[in-house]
């Protein structure tokens, strides 16, 4: 027992000293450590969530698995795939500080976020919508006036409602309750702790689909924001970003992307959501020759 805690103490203190700065790229880091650490979500259906077997599953999780296979090929050695749970608040800091190498979830690519991290190609298109219980009488964001509305801390959706409040578009202001993850917010909606929950339309469809009684809920309102999804990588690491982007392009070209899409968002998927024409064109145009 003594040896163990002595070891941990020593390790802890050594690790606190800067042994290697972020000058090394992510590819080198993965190669050296033998681990590919991916941030995934546990409440973003169908992009990243927890299955009945308490495992990480979802569209972005499958994408990460493909990236992992490509990494092993590129680095020429077995790499351990490690999933770490992230939420809208922690995903950017954890990529920026090196805890995770990439975040594969449902993150919106915004100009603000570009200051701290970089993004891959766009993998999905959606926007902020509202989830309510049927019969609530809420049809658009204007009806949120004075109601208890939930949102995830640090999300574009939370910012959107706050902005609408500040600009006076919602009068009287909506009472925003901030949660760490969509599953918590949905739980609150189920329990009637909230009148409505806001996040990206596709995720709301996912929450509704996985609910014990989906008929009780409805997604209302038009897109309040424009949310293109991309995966988060570290700032100034072109090699790694290019690697991931090229892999995405390969997946679009050889059909794997569409297969994964079909598995989660196709007619037989968890959340059936046919690809919009815009999205189909976007994918085609992103696939550089």
């Amino acid at each position, binding site marked *: *027992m*003594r040896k*163990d*805690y*002595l070891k*941990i*103490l020593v390790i*802890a203190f050594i*690790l*606190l*000293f*800067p*042994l*290697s*700065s*972020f000058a090394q790229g992510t590819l080198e880091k993965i190669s050296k450590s033998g681990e590919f650490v991916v941030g995934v979500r*546990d*409440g973003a259906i169908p992009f990243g969530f*927890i299955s*009945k077997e*308490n495992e990480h599953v979802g569209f972005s999780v499958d994408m990460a698995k493909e990236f992992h296979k490509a990494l092993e090929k590129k680095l020429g050695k077995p790499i351990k795939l490690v999933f*770490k*749970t*992230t*939420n809208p608040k*922690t995903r950017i*800091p*954890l990529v*920026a*500080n*090196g*805890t*995770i190498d990439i975040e594969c979830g449902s993150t919106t690519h915004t100009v603000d976020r570009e200051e701290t991290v970089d993004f891959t190609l766009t993998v999905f298109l959606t926007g902020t919508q509202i989830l309510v219980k049927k019969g609530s009488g809420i049809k658009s964001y204007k009806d949120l006036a004075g109601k208890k509305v939930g949102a995830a801390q640090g999300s574009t959706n939370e910012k959107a409602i706050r902005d609408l409040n500040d600009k006076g578009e919602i009068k009287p202001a909506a009472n925003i309750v901030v949660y760490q*993850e969509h*599953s*918590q917010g*949905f*739980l609150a909606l*189920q*329990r009637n702790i909230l009148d409505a929950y806001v996040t990206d339309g596709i995720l709301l469809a996912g929450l509704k689909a996985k609910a*014990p009684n989906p008929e009780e809920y409805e997604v209302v309102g038009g897109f309040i924001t424009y949310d293109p999804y991309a995966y988060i990588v570290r700032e100034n690491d072109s090699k790694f970003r290019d690697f991931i982007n090229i892999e995405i392009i390969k997946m679009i070209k050889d059909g794997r992307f569409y297969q994964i899409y079909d598995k989660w968002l196709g007619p037989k998927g968890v959340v059936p959501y046919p690809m919009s024409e815009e999205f189909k064109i976007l994918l085609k145009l992103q696939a550089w020759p």
Partner: protein
Amino acid sequence: MAIFDYKVIVDNLPFLMRGLITTFQLALIGISGGLALGILVGMARLSSRPYIYYPATLFVNFLRSIPLILVIFWFYFLVPIIAGRPLGDFLSASVAFIVFEASYFAEIIRAGIQSIPKGQMQAALSTGLDYKQTMRHIIIPQALRNMIPSLLTQSVIIFQDTSLAYVIGLKEFLRSASVVDAREVRSLELYTFVGIVYFIFCFTMSYFTKKWEAKKGMAR
């Protein structure tokens, strides 16, 4: 909705138990690491050399003034930025606990050593033992006997504090239960279960602490 549904606990028992094991691991690391560091800091607090005394005092007073949640946030999000490398959730929680609990252990140890009458030290020195030997063979063994109840109580507190690792998503016992709750919405059953399990462990530990205290008595 008054039916108490045991099924959700039984179905997810392996997952919950894994969380409990993580809790135990974190607690053990916090207790042993915190104690080790705490002994050093506690003795530093008794030093007459200012360059040892002041940093130790600052360390203890600072850490005892802020909530553990903040310390956990520091090590998970911010230390990696300063240190240039990530720590991961279990390691950062471990380090946060070791550092935080050490400040509490340090005070217990300092008080314990100071509770030994000066006469002991003087007698020992007059028989020719030096400071180090006195501490090792005379003061600390007696002080330890006095300190053990407080140390054990602090260990129980550490076991409870592991639940705070919830905030960084570490899959310890409480977080595991809330993951299941988010999916199954069986809050009453799950959180009652969590409460009972914690109660059983902590009560047992404090019961044995009281027994020890009664048995050994205080060294005067």
